[in-house]
């Protein structure tokens, strides 16, 4: 198992550079030259239509997919190079939560610490309880993931990512199944985590409140390309018709 650095992460903020990223699945182009720079410690939101490749982009950043061409750099070093990904503490909240169904909620949340033997079991139990409380699920350690609602699973997945104390955290639709109050709580947690550890956060979401409420900058992905990057206010005022249409979608009754 790879050595995980346990040093104070605050000083090791991680910058992400995405350069000309291209990816097709069976001839169907999904990412068509993505260029993005996320600064260390930044909260960066990505919005865009369903099926535009946001999840695929996140999977590339965390090394689950290999690009057809282009590259991703962590602190100016390609993640394709040997050991580059293992050097950093990374976490991802999957769109589908991706909890391990054979483990309990508590074991899921503590998995990173127990598998890498970073803490003694009693300490792990304490941390798990604490993180579950953060997402409003105190006392559910013993439940099986199959006994949870979609939104509860998502919150367990967030707790599992928080336990890692990552330098880079990727959220794929963290609030898509949550009620508005819980979504606000999650937004606060995203901000709090950054304050505490200066983590770099990349956030994919359809939730405009969340994107504009917590992020420093927002990008819009459309047909495999980034068509806009800027601060939330700049995006809202953008004249680009695609963006305006996307942000102002309403029922016309």
């Amino acid at each position: 198992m790879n050595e995980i650095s346990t040093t104070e992460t605050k000083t090791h903020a991680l910058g992400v550079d995405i350069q000309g990223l291209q990816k097709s699945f069976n001839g169907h182009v999904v990412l068509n030259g993505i260029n993005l720079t996320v600064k260390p410690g930044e909260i960066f939101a990505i919005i865009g239509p369903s099926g535009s490749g946001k999840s695929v982009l996140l999977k590339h950043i965390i090394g689950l997919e290999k690009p057809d061409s282009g590259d991703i750099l962590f602190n100016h070093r390609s993640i394709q190079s040997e050991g580059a990904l293992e050097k950093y503490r990374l976490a991802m909240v999957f769109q589908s939560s991706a909890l391990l169904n054979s483990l309990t909620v508590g074991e899921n949340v503590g998995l990173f610490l127990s598998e890498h033997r970073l803490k003694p079991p009693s300490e792990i139990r304490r941390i798990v309880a604490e993180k579950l409380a953060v997402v409003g699920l105190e006392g559910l350690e013993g439940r099986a993931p199959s006994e949870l609602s979609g939104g509860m699973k998502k919150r367990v997945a967030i707790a599992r990512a928080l336990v890692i104390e990552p330098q880079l955290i990727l959220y794929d639709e963290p609030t898509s199944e949550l009620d508005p109050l819980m979504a606000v709580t999650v937004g606060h947690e995203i901000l709090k985590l950054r304050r505490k550890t200066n983590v770099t956060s990349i956030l994919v979401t359809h939730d405009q409140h969340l994107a504009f409420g917590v992020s420093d900058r927002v990008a819009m992905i459309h047909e495999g390309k980034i068509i806009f990057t800027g601060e939330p206010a700049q995006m809202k005022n953008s004249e680009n018709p695609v963006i305006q249409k996307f942000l102002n979608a309403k029922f016309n009754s």
Partner: protein
Amino acid sequence: MFQNIGEMLTLFWRTLKSAGITWRQRRKIADQLFDIGNASLLMACILSLFIGGVLALQTGPMLVERGLASVIGGIVGMSMCKELAPVMMAILIAGRIGSAMAAEIGSMRVYQEIDALQTMNINPIHYLVVPRVAAISIALPALVIFAILTGWLGGALVCAFNNEISLSFQGYFNNLKDVVGMGDVLNGIFKSFVFSLIIGVVSCHQGLTTIGGPRGIGRSVTKAVVNSIVLILILDYFLTRSLLYLE
């Protein structure tokens, strides 16, 4: 199937290289062992009781007719421990345990649980493959010991109670003891150990390479079982051949 053999060998090699962590995974191995024992021990014993019985039934009357009743014990004993127990138990375990392994790992692949492990820097080979291969390589040889013993017993029962044979327990086992040595039993156990590695690696490999949804999982399960059995039967021939050279 054969184009995957390279991949399977790679997986086998990587599993071997990670074997050092086996002790750390002992709790998971114990859980797996419990599952395997629970699912298969009774079945293995019943199956081999009948296999031993049918062997005696097929050979017994013919040998008695020719005045060779005294060699039945040796024939049943030898075929049971060198061939039938290892192969039949391997097939049973491929069907019961290999299929379950492929299904479990396959659904973890499809539902992104393995991706989640990877993002946490947890090696799926350490976490999923090593404990399963270790458990099956302990469980199958152990089951084979039970199978050999119950198979012998099955043969003895048929010899004693079948009117056309009517060979006493004592006559049966005396001959068995004369013919079958410890080496022959070890020979069968060794074979089953090799078979267990085939089942473990083939099933885990199928699970890990599952694509698609529930249908993909179904496909993986079928392939895991069929490929394991085919490989076991082919390898059995060559293994027997080489073990014969050693004798």
